[in-house]
């Protein structure tokens, strides 16, 4: 099966939030009560019932103040930390590369919540499981299996979101980045081509990932897991056992020596 992807071009995005609404409708998610926190951004964070949201970034952009837009949702990582840490094997990947949580198997331990480098999954306190964007591959609501674009892509008026074969979208994204660079946006970048083994959501951005609130070099959560086990075990084996050795063994030795000396006299 060919790997698929979503290409999000932030330079074409008008932040109309059509994708946000389409996602809610298709997945039958309720609206959430929110509070204004001084930004057009709404809601302020992803949640078990909000799987995609637009971000509004006010920042310095090539020496000028700018209002930039970005997307916040699951990146469908090739090396998906959430799936690697899940102790029940509930996080699965489709042949096309989209990552989803099996709602009939997840125990709601919250490990994926802590492991995701993009802070995507959230534990649903009512249902008890962790939930996140499935790339429209949810059981019973699987658009991809029917040959349809994900709901967010379908709704996007300026075609800032496109769905298709990943390799083609990587080429398309790189072409767009080259165009932007030619226009003077020297930091333009295709985020997701290489990050975490390759993401299945690619971002065209006209400035560095940092400006767009994306982690510069995201790491798989279990990257140093062997080193971390060894540090702990070594601490138990050597550093913690050492004071005990001094107290219990040394005393024993000293006593043995003393009795020997006494015996010799």
């Amino acid at each position: 099966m060919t790997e698929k992807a979503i290409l999000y071009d932030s330079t074409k995005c008008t932040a109309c939030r059509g994708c946000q609404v389409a996602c809610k409708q298709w997945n039958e998610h309720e609206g959430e009560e929110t509070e204004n926190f001084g930004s057009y951004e709404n809601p302020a964070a992803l949640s078990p019932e909000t799987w995609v949201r637009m971000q509004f970034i006010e920042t310095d952009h090539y020496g000028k103040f700018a209002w930039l837009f970005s997307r916040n949702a699951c990146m469908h990582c090739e090396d998906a930390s959430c799936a690697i840490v899940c102790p029940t094997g509930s996080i699965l990947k489709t042949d096309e590369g989209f990552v989803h949580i099996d709602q009939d198997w997840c125990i709601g331990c919250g490990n994926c919540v802590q492991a995701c480098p993009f802070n995507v999954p959230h534990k649903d306190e009512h249902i008890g499981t962790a939930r996140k964007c499935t790339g429209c591959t949810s059981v019973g609501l699987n658009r991809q299996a029917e040959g349809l674009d994900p709901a967010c892509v379908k709704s996007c008026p300026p075609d800032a979101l496109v769905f298709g074969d990943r390799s083609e979208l990587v080429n398309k994204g790189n072409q767009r980045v080259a165009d932007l660079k030619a226009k003077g946006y020297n930091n333009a970048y295709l985020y997701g081509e290489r990050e975490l083994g390759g993401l299945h959501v690619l971002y065209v951005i006209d400035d560095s990932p940092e400006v767009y609130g994306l982690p510069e070099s995201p790491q798989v959560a279990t990257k140093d897991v062997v080193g971390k086990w060894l540090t702990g075990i070594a601490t138990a084996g050597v550093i913690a056992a050492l004071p005990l050795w001094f107290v219990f063994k040394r005393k024993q030795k000293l006593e043995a020596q003393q009795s020997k000396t006494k015996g010799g006299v």
Partner: protein
Amino acid sequence: MSLGEMSWNIPLWFDIWFAGMAGGAYLVAFLANLYSGGSNRNLFRLAVYTGVPLAIIGVLLLVVDLGTPIWFWHLFTSFLPVAVMSMGTWILLAFLIIAFIMIILWVIEGDATKNAGKYSGNMAGTARRFSGFFAWINVIFAVLLITYPGVLLASTSQPIWSNTLLVPALFVASAVATGVALLILMAMLTNAVNNSSSSMLNSIVKWLFGSTGWQISKETMGQLSKSLLGLIVVEALILVGYVIWLGATGASGTEALDLLITGTLAIPFWITIVGVGLIIPLALLFMNRGKATLAVLTSASCVLLGGLALRAILIVGGQL
């Protein structure tokens, strides 16, 4: 984020505090017995009898905290070496099963010693040899048990937990220190029971420890408080190393460190982890060299509270 919104919450603080005490006490008592040539058997039994219920309570708390507690058995349908929580589940199960076998063997041994005529051959000796063998095996699981919580936190994307390799080391050092503190408190309790006039209490303790005498000696108590002093120093050094390392891991590291030592969590960090958990017990143990019972009692209690605070503050810190 408020406490209620965190996906890892208060039950996890207690779970890893209990697991640390259980595994730490086991490791300490095992080594104390080994180093002293088998003269601390009662201390070792005390560690197992106290640790097993603690670990079980910890697990129950954790199960209750799951989003779907009745599906906890899904954890036992897969063995995933890279998934730390999966490993933790199997480690805990192995630790508890082996500890149960050891307890059964001890009961058989005690019974066989009392009623030598009832058993054929040297039953008591066989039970003792087997329990000795299992004690060695379980020391591996005790070490893994105190290591896994730190690795669990460190294998995430939260800078305060994952930026350095030292969270597992810090949790292990604290687990061993809380293990010693627990042994000290439990030994004080059993010794007090020994001297009590209640025949029921006396017979329970006799059943658990056998008729060979189970009093934890004054000498062992002194050695435990000296060990506690050493372990607090080790923990303090690792904490300093962690703070320095975390601060050197770029912007995310400094932000996490600020949160801990000057920001939102600074007051609890300095008062509970550093003050109650390290400085007070260190000063008390150092000044009186572990002689006065009250000073030892206070130090051990402080170390236990400091251990809980370390877990609580770091778990909260990773989710703010």
